[in-house]
Each structure stands twice: as structure tokens, then as C-alpha cells.
């Protein structure tokens, strides 16, 4: 029994968002009289943590603490229009919309404070911990909650903001394909290490190590989560998954999780990554989308590593043990 080891790499780019018929998102922000800010959206959270990062972006822009922001998503009676959560677009599009709404709401808040302090609005600042003050005069300070309450009960005003972001529609030139299909590009480079059993063709992925460039990480733990989960999904796509195991034949299509193969907790490789931040020109705080791309580079990196280990180049996914074994057989004297 021989076990062969090999290393493979892949480098990829991935577009943020799309241009489908114009790609807009909207957000509304308003302050309650208790001083919390409600961000209202119709975008949904798929588990990537959209609500959390949108709350962070809103808090940053408003100049208040993260726990003062409530994100209310996914109700068409209350949330303004959104295209949906796909195409690595949500943090970028909704984030930009939320910044616009938060800027407007913040301005309304500062206006009330300025009036109350009898100061110019340019002199008012937020300390990020829930207080408004006249710059350089700590004595003239007031909690956001108090100003928000005053806006309603003393001045009869709303503290609210509207925001939208749209990537305009880009028609595709049918002859040349000229188009503007996305907003920015994130990048990844993955190195995978595998071990192949030459008698069974079985592949063990030993490690998946990647560098990602994602513009700006709003929440590094959530970025790490995408990278770790994506590396697993990429490995799963590379070696296991198919709804047509003998494509193009339609037979033997899996009906359940015992037939639909995916690696489990005993197949985990070492997963490691570094994340670079080179802010994009158009993302909120420089964000680029990485929700989708994390499954991409691991696939060719693993396939290239198998070639490096065995000399067998497999050009069809998934790379099953049988394909490798047949490839090894063809090379055996």
C-alpha cells in the first residue's frame, strides 16, 4: 500500500454583486425615543451574519455603540425594497444603503443637539459611547437617548434617514460581450496538500491554506467563518458531491444524506488563512463580498495537488477514488 503526497495551488478572483436589471438595495434608519437606532431592511440573513455586520456598519456611521442598533430585516410591510441575498452582494449593497441612511439620521440627530446646545451643527460630535457633546466642551454633553427623546417630545421632529444604493443596469453588447457586470473583485490564493492511497484511489486532504484579499473585514470572526466553511464546501465539491453520480446519465440520483456524499468531521483538513485588506473604492468602508468565493479556489488547488501526488490529471468533478484508480491503472506498467 502506497500513500502519495502532493501539493497544489490555485489563484482566483471573484466579483462582488451583479448588474441584473440594475441592482438596488434600500435601508431606513430611525431613532427610538430611548436612543436606540432601528435599521429596517427587507434583506434576509442566510446565516452569514448579515444582521450583525449591517448593525456594525450602522453603528460605525451613526457614531453609536453596536448594542444601540437594532436591525429589523425581512418583512415586506416594513422593510424597503431589496433585490435579495445572493451574488456576494448583501454586505456591499445593503451596507452602502445603510451608510447613506445612517448619515441622514445622524445629521437629524446632530441638528436637534445643535439646537438644544445652541451651537453650530459642525461643533457637535458623538463619542461612540452614546453621548453627544459640543466639541471640546465635555460639560456640554447629553446622552443620545435624551436628545432622541427631546426630538420627539420637545421639537416634534424625526431622527431618521433613508438610504439606497444601486448598481445601474449594464446591458451586455451581444457581439463583444462588453459589460460592467460587478462592483469590485475579491481575490484568493489557496494551497492544498493531499495524500492519495494508490490502492483505493482515496484522497485525504491534509491542509487547505489560503490568503484572501477582501477589501475590509467588518467582522473578522465572520470572515474567518466564511473561509473555513467555504474551504470545507470546496473540498466537498472537489471530491464528493453530485446529484448525478454518473453524469450525464441521470441514474442513481441521491435521495437522502446517506447517498448524497459530503465529508464529515473526521475528514477535516487543517484550514489556515491570512486575510489582507485593500479597501475597494465603492464598498462600505472598503468592503468586497466574499460570501460565495471561499468554495472556489480549494477545488482546483485540491485537483492540482492530486496531480502533483500521482501524475493523474482528473478533469471532471467530483474526483472520485474510482477516477483516480483508473488513472493510476493507466499509468501502471
Amino acid at each position, binding site marked *: 500500500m502506497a500513500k502519495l503526497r502532493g501539493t*497544489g495551488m*490555485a*489563484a*482566483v*478572483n471573484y*466579483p462582488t454583486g451583479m448588474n441584473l*436589471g440594475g441592482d438596488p438595495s434600500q435601508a431606513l434608519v430611525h431613532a427610538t425615543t430611548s436612543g436606540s437606532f432601528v435599521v429596517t431592511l*427587507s434583506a*434576509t*440573513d442566510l*446565516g452569514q451574519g448579515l444582521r450583525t455586520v449591517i448593525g456594525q456598519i450602522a453603528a*460605525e456611521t451613526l457614531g453609536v455603540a*453596536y448594542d444601540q442598533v437594532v436591525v429589523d*430585516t*425581512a418583512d*415586506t410591510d416594513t*422593510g424597503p425594497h431589496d*433585490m*435579495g*441575498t445572493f451574488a456576494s452582494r448583501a454586505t456591499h449593497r445593503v451596507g452602502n444603503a445603510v451608510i447613506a441612511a445612517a448619515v441622514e439620521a445622524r445629521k437629524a440627530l446632530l441638528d436637534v443637539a445643535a439646537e438644544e446646545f445652541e451651537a453650530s451643527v459642525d461643533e457637535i460630535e458623538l463619542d461612540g459611547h452614546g453621548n453627544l457633546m459640543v466639541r471640546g466642551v465635555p460639560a456640554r454633553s447629553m446622552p443620545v437617548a435624551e436628545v432622541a427623546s427631546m426630538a420627539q417630545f420637545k421639537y416634534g421632529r424625526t431622527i431618521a434617514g433613508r438610504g439606497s444604493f444601486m448598481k445601474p443596469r449594464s446591458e451586455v453588447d*451581444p457581439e*463583444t*460581450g*462588453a459589460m*460592467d*457586470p460587478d462592483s469590485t*473583485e475579491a*481575490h484568493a*490564493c489557496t*494551497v492544498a496538500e493531499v495524500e492519495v492511497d494508490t490502492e483505493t484511489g482515496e484522497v485525504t486532504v491534509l491542509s487547505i491554506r489560503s490568503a484572501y*484579499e477582501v477589501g475590509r473585514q*467588518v*467582522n*473578522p*470572526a*465572520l470572515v474567518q467563518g466564511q473561509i473555513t466553511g467555504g474551504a470545507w464546501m470546496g473540498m466537498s*465539491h472537489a471530491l464528493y458531491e*453530485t*446529484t*448525478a*453520480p454518473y*453524469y*450525464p*446519465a441521470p441514474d442513481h*440520483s441521491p*435521495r*437522502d444524506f446517506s447517498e448524497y456524499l459530503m465529508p464529515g468531521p473526521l475528514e477535516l483538513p487543517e484550514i489556515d488563512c*491570512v486575510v*489582507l485588506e*485593500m479597501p475597494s473604492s465603492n464598498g462600505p468602508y472598503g468592503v468586497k463580498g466574499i*460570501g*460565495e468565493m471561499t468554495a*472556489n479556489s480549494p477545488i*482546483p*488547488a485540491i485537483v*492540482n495537488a492530486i496531480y502533483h501526488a500521482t501524475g493523474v490529471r482528473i*478533469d*471532471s*468533478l*467530483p474526483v472520485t477514488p474510482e477516477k483516480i484508480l483508473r488513472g493510476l491503472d493507466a499509468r501502471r506498467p
Partner: protein
Amino acid sequence: MTAPLEVVGRSVERSDAVGHVTGRTRFAADRAFPGMLHLKMVRSPLHHARVRGIDLSEAERVPGFVRALTAADVPHNRYTILSLIGVEPEEEFVLAEDRVRFKGEAIVAIVAETEEAAMEAVAKVRLDLDELPAVFDVEEALKPGAPIVTHWGNNTFMYEGHPCRRVRLGDVEAAFARADHIVEGVYNSSPIEHAPLETTGCIAVPEGGRFTVYTNTQALYFSLDNTSIILQVPGNRLHFIGGTVGGGFGGKVDVIVEPIATLAAMKTGRPVRFVYSRSEEMQVSSTRSAWRIYLKDGVTADGRIIARKVTSYADSGAYSRQTPYALTKHAANAAGPYAIPNVSIDAYCVYTNRQPTSAMRGFGVTMASFALEVQMDRIAETVGLDPWSIRFLNAYRNGDMKPHRKLADDATLIETMQAAAALVGHELTAEQQAMTSAPRAGGDPGGR
């Protein structure tokens, strides 16, 4: 933004963390309503067939049966997600009319008092089907005489008069003629299931002349607007509530359950629950397309790629759903993150008698990246370079024009590769270490 960031960049606790670990997070199908009915679907057992008749008589006698819905009950029986943004033609049916084009296609919706009664009634619907020849391979589907899946006479989606999405930059044939090496590869993938742990589903509830639909869609307004079109009711009579989705990965952009569940709620005046079983999720719901990608590269002796020709076929299955857009997205990315002066891309969206395919995480790009990055290693081997060097040599930079004629402005491939090399301890040459993605001197060179 020059001020230091306070909240952005911090790993704050997820706002849904406590909800998730306590099970209090409410998913769409975690709700129950008094008098709620259950919808189950009668599906085609054949890959391709003419529908001659539907006999509901036995099903109607099952205790708990409430009613059946067929194509005639659907006000606008066309299910074409992208019609919202003007993508034509309308070609899929909410419930099948005279023909079924894939195994699992919905034919009759059964609404019953309990799930068990609905399943029993489904089993008792008798279908009279005439099996038709079927096609399962993207290139077989394009041959003369292949069974035709669509209603317009061939098996490709038409892009403004072309059977494929085209990208053209420079002159690939001339560049092939002067290349030192021609490197070719054919790359295949098979369909992949999203496999979210929570299956696709919704509950439609009649409420005072309106319908509230609790759904796990990834795109509330896609779902609402499509439901409005299919049911021919104004959007203001629909109220869609989503929230946390139990895994999407693109599969829940399909708007597949809401229109029929809402119709059933309209017809019965009662809440209706329609949630896919796991086998429906596996065998009926959209998958990631299978791809076949032909790559032909012209390369100089020192490893520069001077021409790349890409011919791609995505297996859309029986209907379009989001796949026509996948090919456009594919075409914009099919040359990879490399500076190649001559590029020709033909990307075909091909119909077969397979379960329809749609969006999935990275769609249009994931399999392009697989093909391109294996091809890059082939090129490296052909010219005698290592895998890192071939990529550094050809990496795109800011200011380079991509094949779809957009100037690169956020390129960081070089920096990303440098970081990966450092992470794994791969030693780069001094030249590679010194490279950046900054625009080339003199702008985008025609003769780079």
C-alpha cells in the same frame, strides 16, 4: 474614511447567537396556525412525457383530502423568475400543462388536512403519460435530431440572436498562429445540490383580504413579485415575512413554493403549508449546473498567455430559472484573473431533461475557476515553469482591460499570491516579491 474605525473591524458577537444556540430563532416552518392545511405535490415519474390525462377520483376519496390544484387553477401559469428583470421567454409552468420535461416536475398540488392524508392522496393520483425521448448531455442536446426540450425549437437560450453569450477581445486565431504552444483542456463537472439543512418551504396565511406568507426565500421581493404575477393579484395584497434562512447557498432564490401555497390558501381560505421533503430538495429542487468547459490557450515559449478561447456549456436542465444569467456572469470571468490580450468566449446555456438548475454559491464562476486553475498548471508544465511563476507572469493589474472591456481597478491577485506564499513558506523570486498590482507603466499595453 480616515478616522479610526470603532465597530467595523471588530469581531462582535453575532446578534442572532443566543437565538441560535437556544433554538429560539424562528425559522419559516416553525410556525403553526389553527386550521392549517398541508400541500404535497404530484410529480412526473418520467424525464420527458406528454401528459394525456390526470385522474383524481381515487385521491379525492382519501379522508382528509381538501382539494387539488392543476394548471387550469393557476391564473398566470408561467414560472419565470427572471421575467421580473425582463429576461425572456416565459417557459416554465407552475403546474405542468401538456408536457413534462424533467423527472419530478410538478403536475398536481394536493391540499389536505394532514401531511399523511396529502401523501396518501398524492399516491392515489393516476397520471396518463406518454413517454418521450429525453436528452441528458449538453453536447448531445445541440446535435441535429436531439429531442427538443424547449418550446422554441432548439435547446439553447438565445442571447440577443446568438445561441451563446459571446465575449470577443483581439484576434485569438491570429495569436494562436504565432503562439509557441497550444494548450488544450476539457473540464467537466456534475450537478451539485445546495443541501441546506432547512428545506425550502413556506406557510401562506389568509389575513383580512391579504395573504401573509412566511417563507425562507433568499429574496423576499423576488418571491413577492413573482407570486403577484403568477396569481394576478396586486402586490399590496401580499405580505411576505422572511428572516433567518436555514442555509441558502443560492437554492432559495427559486420562488418555487410561495405561488402555489398562496394560491392554495386563496382557494381554501385556510393557512397552507408547503415544505419540501429532503428527497424533493435532493431530486427536484434546482441544483448547481453541470458544466463542460473547453479551453484552448496560445502561449509563448516564456509562458505568456497571448490567446484564450473558451467554449462553455452549462446544463440548465429543463428550464432556465437563473441559469441564463449564470452564463453572462461566467462570460465576464471565464478568462480568469489574467492579462490576456486576445480572448474569445462562447458560453452556452443548454436545456436537457434534467432537474432545472439555478443559482448556487459562486455560480458561473466556481467551475470556471476549477477549469482555469487546472489549465494554468497544464500551461506551467508545458512551458516548464512552476505553478506560482506562471500565475505571477500572467496576473492582471489595475488598469488592464478585461476581456469584457472593463478596466480592472481592484486587482490584488499579486498581493494575495504573495501572502499565500508567505503563509505556506513558498519562496518567491525577488522579482515576484517586488511585483504589485499597480497599473503598468504606460497603461494597459496592447502588446503586454
